[in-house]
C-alpha cells in the first residue's frame, strides 16, 4: 500500500457518495479510493450520514402489488454485470473505463502519450504517459483538473506526487509537472474543461489532440 499524502477533499468524497460528481471526476475519486483507506473511511462516514437520512425519511405509500412483484422476481436470474478487477497498475475503475483491455496509447510528442477514456458533457478523463524527466507543457486550467498517479511520480511547484496521490488543479494553479527519474509516470487525469497551454506549440496542437 503506497504512502499517500495528497488526498481527495472531504467535500468531494461526499459528492461522490451522493453521485453529484461528473462521471470523469467520479472515475478519479473511485480510483484514489482504491488505494486509500483514509478516504474510504471518509466515504464510509458520508454513507453513514446518507443512511441516517434514509432511515429518517418520510415514508411514501407504495403501489399495491409492488411488493408481490418484487418478491416474485427474487428467483429470476440477474443480468450478469461485468466486473472489472484491478490489473497491473490499473485499479478497477480504470479497468472498467478500458473495458478490461490494455490502454491504446496515442503519441502527443516528446515521448508523452495519452489514451482518452471518457468524453462527455461533464468533462473528460484520460490516461497520460510521461517519460521520466519529461515535463508536461506549462499549463493552467479553465476549470477543475484532478490528476491521480498510477505509476512513477511527478513533481511540480506544489510538491511531489507518487502512486495514489491526487493533485487538484483549478484556475489558480499554473504549474509545470515534471515526471521524476525512474519509471515513466502514468496518470489518470480528469478535467471539466479543456486545458489551456501557455507555450505556443502545444496550444496549436490542443484541438488536434484534445488535451
Amino acid at each position, binding site marked *: *500500500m503506497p504512502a499517500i499524502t495528497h488526498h481527495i*477533499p*472531504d*467535500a*468531494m468524497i*461526499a*459528492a461522490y*457518495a*451522493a*453521485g*453529484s*460528481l461528473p*462521471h470523469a471526476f*467520479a*472515475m478519479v475519486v*473511485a*480510483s484514489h*479510493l*482504491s488505494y486509500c*483507506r*483514509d478516504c*474510504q*473511511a*471518509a*466515504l*464510509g*462516514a*458520508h*454513507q*453513514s*450520514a*446518507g*443512511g*441516517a*437520512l*434514509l*432511515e*429518517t*425519511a*418520510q*415514508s*411514501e*405509500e*407504495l*403501489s399495491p402489488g*409492488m*411488493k408481490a*412483484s*418484487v*418478491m416474485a*422476481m*427474487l428467483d429470476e436470474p*440477474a443480468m450478469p454485470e461485468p466486473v472489472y*478487477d*484491478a490489473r497491473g497498475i490499473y*485499479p*478497477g*475503475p480504470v479497468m*472498467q*473505463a478500458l473495458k478490461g483491455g490494455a490502454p491504446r496509447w496515442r503519441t502527443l510528442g516528446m515521448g508523452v502519450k495519452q489514451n482518452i477514456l471518457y468524453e462527455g458533457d461533464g468533462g473528460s478523463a484520460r490516461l497520460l504517459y510521461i517519460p521520466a524527466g519529461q515535463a508536461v507543457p506549462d499549463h493552467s486550467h479553465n476549470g477543475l483538473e484532478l490528476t491521480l498517479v498510477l505509476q512513477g511520480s511527478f513533481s511540480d511547484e506544489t510538491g511531489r506526487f507518487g502512486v495514489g496521490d491526487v493533485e487538484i488543479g483549478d484556475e489558480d494553479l499554473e504549474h509545470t509537472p515534471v515526471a521524476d527519474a525512474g519509471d515513466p509516470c502514468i496518470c489518470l487525469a480528469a478535467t471539466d474543461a479543456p486545458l489551456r497551454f501557455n507555450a505556443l506549440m502545444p496550444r496549436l496542437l490542443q484541438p488536434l489532440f484534445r488535451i
Partner: protein
Amino acid sequence: MVTVNLDSPPGRETLRGISPRGTAAVSNGKAFSQLTIWMLAVRDQRDRAAFSALFDHLAPRLKGFVIRSGASSALAEEIVQDVMLTIWRKASQFDPHRAQASAWIYQIARNRHIDIVRKEHRPVPDELGEDPGLEPDASQILGLEQEAEQLKLAIQQLQPDQKEMIEKAYLGELTHQEISSRTGLPLGTVKSRIRLGLGRLRKELKGLR
C-alpha cells in the same frame, strides 16, 4: 421477529462478529440493529421472511427519500424496486464491520438511481483487503452502529431547513462546494470507527503474508 441461525451459514465457516453458537447477535448486552439482523439473515440464509420484513420497513422510506430528490412517483418506484432486488442479489457483499446496513443501502440507492437516470455505470472503488482469517469481533459492528445512531439523532435535531439542505446534499442536489461549507454533522467519530475497522483489517492482512 426474525432470528438468525448462525450454526452453518452457507459458504462461511463462521459468521464474523457473532458467536457461532448463539442465535442472537448480542455483545455486552447490546443487540445489533434490526436492519442488520435482517440483512445478515438475507445474506447468510437467503431468508425470504427477513427480506419481506426488510421490504416493509425500508421500501416506503426509500420511496420517500428518492422523491425528495425530485423524482416522480413512478420513477421513485422503479428505483425502489431495483434497489430492493439489488439488496437481495448483492447481499453477499454486505459486511457490517465496514458499513452499517443503512449506509450500505444508501450507497446502493444512489448508485442505482444514477445508473437508471444517466444510463452509465458508476465507477466504484476496489475493495481494500479481504479478510479470510479475521477473528469474530462484534464490538466493531456495535461501535459503528452506535456512532450511526448518534448521527441519526443529530439529524433528527436539525432545524427543518437545515435538514432539507443536508438531504439535498446527500441526494446529489447540491454541488460539492456547497456541501463543504454546510454540513456540520458529527462525521468525525464515524470516520474514526471505520478507519479503526479498516486499520484492523490491514493488520490482519499483514499477519497473513
